C-alpha cells in the first residue's frame, strides 16, 4: 500500500482560500526504460488524481509518464463548509489509493 501525505488546514474561516498539498509514494515507471536484461520495463504509473470536497469534485489531474516519481500536487480551494475532503489516486496494474481529511469551517 502506497503511503500518501496530505496537508489540509484543520480549521478555516468561511470564504477563506486554503492550500491543499498531497504527496504520494509511487515509482512512476515510464515504460520507456530498458532493464539490465535488455527488456523494456513495463509502464507503471498513476494515471488519475481526483479531489472531492464533500463529494463534489474540485480538482482533477491526468498523469503521464513524464511526471516524476512520488507525484506532489498542490492547489487552492475556497473553504465553503465543514466536512470531508477526499483524495483518490488510480493507475496502472490496479493501483488505487484513497485518503480523506476533515476540515472545520467557522
Amino acid at each position, binding site marked *: 500500500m502506497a*503511503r500518501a*501525505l*496530505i*496537508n489540509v488546514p484543520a480549521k478555516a474561516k468561511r470564504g477563506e482560500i486554503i492550500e491543499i*498539498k498531497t*504527496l504520494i*509514494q509511487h515509482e*512512476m515507471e515510464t515504460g520507456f526504460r530498458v532493464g539490465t536484461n535488455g527488456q523494456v520495463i513495463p509502464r507503471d504509473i498513476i494515471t488519475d488524481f481526483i479531489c472531492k470536497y464533500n463529494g463534489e469534485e474540485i480538482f482533477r489531474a491526468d498523469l503521464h509518464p513524464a511526471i*516524476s*516519481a*512520488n507525484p*506532489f500536487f*498542490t492547489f487552492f480551494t475556497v473553504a465553503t463548509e465543514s466536512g470531508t475532503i477526499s483524495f483518490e489516486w488510480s493507475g496502472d496494474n490496479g493501483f488505487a489509493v484513497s485518503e480523506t481529511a476533515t476540515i472545520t469551517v467557522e
Partner: protein
Amino acid sequence: MRTGNVAVLVGVVIGATAVAAEIPLSERKSGYDFMGPDTRAMQDDDTTNPGMLWVLDGEALWKRKAGAANKSCADCHGDAGTSMKGVAARYPAFDAGRGRPIDLEQRVNICRADRQQATPLPFEGKELLALTAYIGRQSRGMPIEIGDDERTKPFLEAGRDLFNRRQGQLNLSCAQCHDDNWGQKLAGAPVPQGHATGYPLYRLEWQSLGSLQRRLRNCIVGMRAEPYAFGASEYVDLELYLMWRARGMKVETPAVRP
C-alpha cells in the same frame, strides 16, 4: 577532441587555487544553504518532504518482527523517539566486535544478523533506506558529534587521505571541489561544501531516497575512478571523515537536495 576540451577545463578549475585547505568552522554551510527557496520549503515541511514517505515506512519496519528470533527493533530498543535520539549524529562509530568504525547501515545489519537472526538488508534497498531514514529522523536538529575517540583516529586519517587523494581519469580529489571551489558552478549547479548532514536524503535527480554511499559513488564515478562496493571500508572511513568535518552542524535527515 572531446577529452582535450575536458582536460583544458579541468586545468582551469584546478589552476584557480593553490593547495587544499580545510574550510574554517565558521564558514561552513550545509547543502541546504545552496538550494533555492522552493527546495528548501520542500525539505522544511514534513507533508511535502518526500523523504518522510521512507520515514513512515521505517516506522512500520521498526515495529515489525523479523528473523528466527522473531523480534522487532522495538522489542529491544523500545520507542525510537527516545532510544534513537542523537544516535545518527554519532555515526559512523567504533564497533569493538569489528575493530573498526561502522556506519548506521552496517549497525542496522549487524543488529539484524545477531539479534534478529535475519538476513541482512541489501544496501540501497528500500527497507534499509527506510530504517536509516527513520533512525536518522530522530536526531533531526541535533548537532553532529564525532568526538575524539582515539580508536577511530587511524580511520579518520584514512578518510582524510582519501578525501585529499587525486584519483580517476580526471585526476581529481574530493578536496579540489569541496574545499577549494565550493560555491562555484559545476555544469550550472553550485558545488556545495560536501557536508553529509542530511543522509539518507531525497535527491530530486534520483527521484528517490539514497544513502551517503550512493552519493560518494556518484562523485567517484564523476571523477572517472572505479567506485568501491557498497559497504567497503574505504567508504566508511570517508563517511567518518565527512561527519567529523561537519561536526557541530545540525542533522537534517531526511534532507531534500536538487
